[in-house]
């Protein structure tokens, strides 16, 4: 695990020390911000919308299209660049296994993705501030409920990240301080939700929506990582994973469209199913929507975890294959 933490730390440094992460973050927040304003208009309109519409649309609205851009950009460099620069060979002579390298690359890409989504808490906060009825005042001052919640959520993430950094040095005291800070932030967040004023949206639905988005992201990042391991340079890796995800996006769009029956299933429980239904099970659109309805489904969770495990295993084998050339 020692090597794992060190590599995750280095990868995150590589993301945040270059300008591309900030440019990408700015673009992501701009589009999500525009989407947030659009949904706020709908939410305010009693005819068109309601409370739930915002979160159903917000987390998954632009997500499929963003995935096409986001996943190749986040994953293309991870292994392809290490191979091109020769540093993968340097890592391979350090006391860490190939599986640790792959797992660390995946984890750092996922953490970066979590960071992107954590930034959108401010949009959720804006929405909450628009719709809640202030009931809890401190000396006549109405606390900005939404932003307070967003700050607490960011606090959770920041202290978790800090704890990760301290633990990599195996510095027990600082690790405990960071863990205590993380626990305090979580406790405050729970207290904040419990004390929520009238009109507060269902936090569990928001959380489930985010879990759905994160699961979808983790799944697609594992696919992107495999392409990065197979490609000779990061441009090829980006093109390969962009094309692969494009095909997946098209198939997802076809879910529910095809009415053709599946052959050879006459006497089985699949007899009534169509190809459209089958695509629906793995659709990029339908899975997150279920999460947005506030349900963390076990089958979706298992599907995502098994796909991630398969692609990470394939990536380890792709990295190992260089030894057999």
């Amino acid at each position, binding site marked *: 695990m020692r090597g794992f933490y060190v590599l995750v730390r280095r990868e995150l440094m590589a993301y945040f020390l270059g300008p591309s992460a900030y440019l990408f973050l700015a673009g992501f927040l701009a589009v999500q911000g525009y989407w947030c304003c659009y949904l706020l208009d709908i939410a305010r309109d009693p005819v068109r919308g309601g409370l739930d519409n915002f979160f159903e649309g917000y987390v998954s609205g632009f997500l499929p299209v963003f995935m096409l851009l986001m996943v190749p950009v986040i994953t293309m460099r991870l292994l392809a660049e290490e191979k091109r620069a020769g540093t993968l060979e*340097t890592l391979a*002579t350090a006391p*860490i296994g190939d599986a640790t390298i792959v797992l660390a690359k995946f984890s750092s890409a996922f953490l970066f993705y979590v960071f992107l989504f954590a930034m959108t808490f401010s949009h959720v906060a804006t929405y909450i501030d628009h719709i809640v009825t202030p009931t809890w005042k401190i000396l006549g001052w109405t606390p900005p409920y939404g932003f307070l919640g967003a700050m607490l959520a960011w606090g959770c993430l920041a202290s978790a990240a800090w704890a990760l950094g301290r633990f990599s040095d195996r510095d027990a005291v600082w690790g405990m301080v960071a863990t205590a800070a993380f626990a305090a932030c979580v406790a405050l967040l729970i207290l904040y939700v419990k004390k929520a004023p009238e009109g507060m949206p269902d936090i569990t639905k928001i959380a489930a929506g985010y879990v759905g988005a994160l699961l979808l992201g983790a799944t697609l990042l594992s696919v992107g990582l495999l392409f990065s391991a197979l490609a000779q340079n990061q441009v090829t890796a980006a093109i390969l994973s962009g094309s692969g995800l494009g095909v997946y996006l098209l198939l997802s769009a076809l879910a529910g469209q095809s009415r053709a029956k599946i052959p050879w299933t006459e006497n089985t429980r699949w007899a009534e199913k169509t190809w459209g239904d089958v695509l629906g099970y793995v659709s990029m659109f339908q899975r997150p929507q279920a999460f947005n309805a506030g349900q963390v489904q076990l089958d979706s969770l298992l599907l995502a975890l098994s796909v991630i495990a398969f692609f990470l295993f394939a990536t380890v084998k792709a990295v190992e294959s260089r030894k057999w050339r």
Partner: protein
Amino acid sequence: MGDAPIRVEGLTKHYRGRWGRRVEALRNLTLSVEPGEIFGLLGPNGSGKTTTLKLLTGLLRPTSGRAWMLGKPAGDPQVRSRIGFLPEESYFYRFLTAAETLDFFGRLFGLGVTERRRRADALLEEFGLAEARHRAVGTFSKGMARRLGLASTLLNDPELVLLDEPTSGLDPMGTREVKDLILRLKARGKTVLVCSHLLADIERICDRIAILAGGSLRILGRVSDLLARRDAVQMTVRGLGEGALDALRAQARALGGEVLSVEPPRDRLEDLFLSVVRGPSAGGKSS
């Protein structure tokens, strides 16, 4: 043989070339490196030296044969924390500074923060990189990158050191420092395997050598045994005049010998270069 730091038996490696053609890089190599010795692996380009090192460190898998390092099968990640490997080219993350690079590798080796900093400082000083410690590695010259490579190789205080062309890209001063370093490692009881095609570098420091050519082992033995000429003798004498030399020649012939050459001994070019460059007017270390 049982506790030899490196043991290789029948190691063979075929690469897959274009159209599935097999290229034989190493054929049936068997050798062992004894504890505390400096072992030189020599050979021309493409003779299989680097392939041997890559097989030992687990960067490649053998087509057939087996290899052990420090008693474990070659490539075992646990053994890597006890060895230092300098590859033919030193590859680092370009945006990290020299100090950060050593810190990164120190973390991978599980060194505590105090120990990491102490060793990194000492190695940067030893390899003349102390002033460049806060410069990004991407701005380093080839020689500086090589020095940093050597520093990172020794960061974990390895029992066994594998060096592939360690003097590549270094100036004569750097080359001498590397040779002195290898001798210091031996004095500290370390085992060193050096790969090079620069014969003069190897001749003076190695206890034993193996010469590879065309992927197979051609000769293996102690340097002193392999290079000694049994049919001739060399004397270096100070303070003899021309007349005395003539008398010596005559005496040698009278005793049945054949005088092959009589000439003043020459300094080695490396020694001359170092004495000139390190003279009073020369600056400090450069890269």
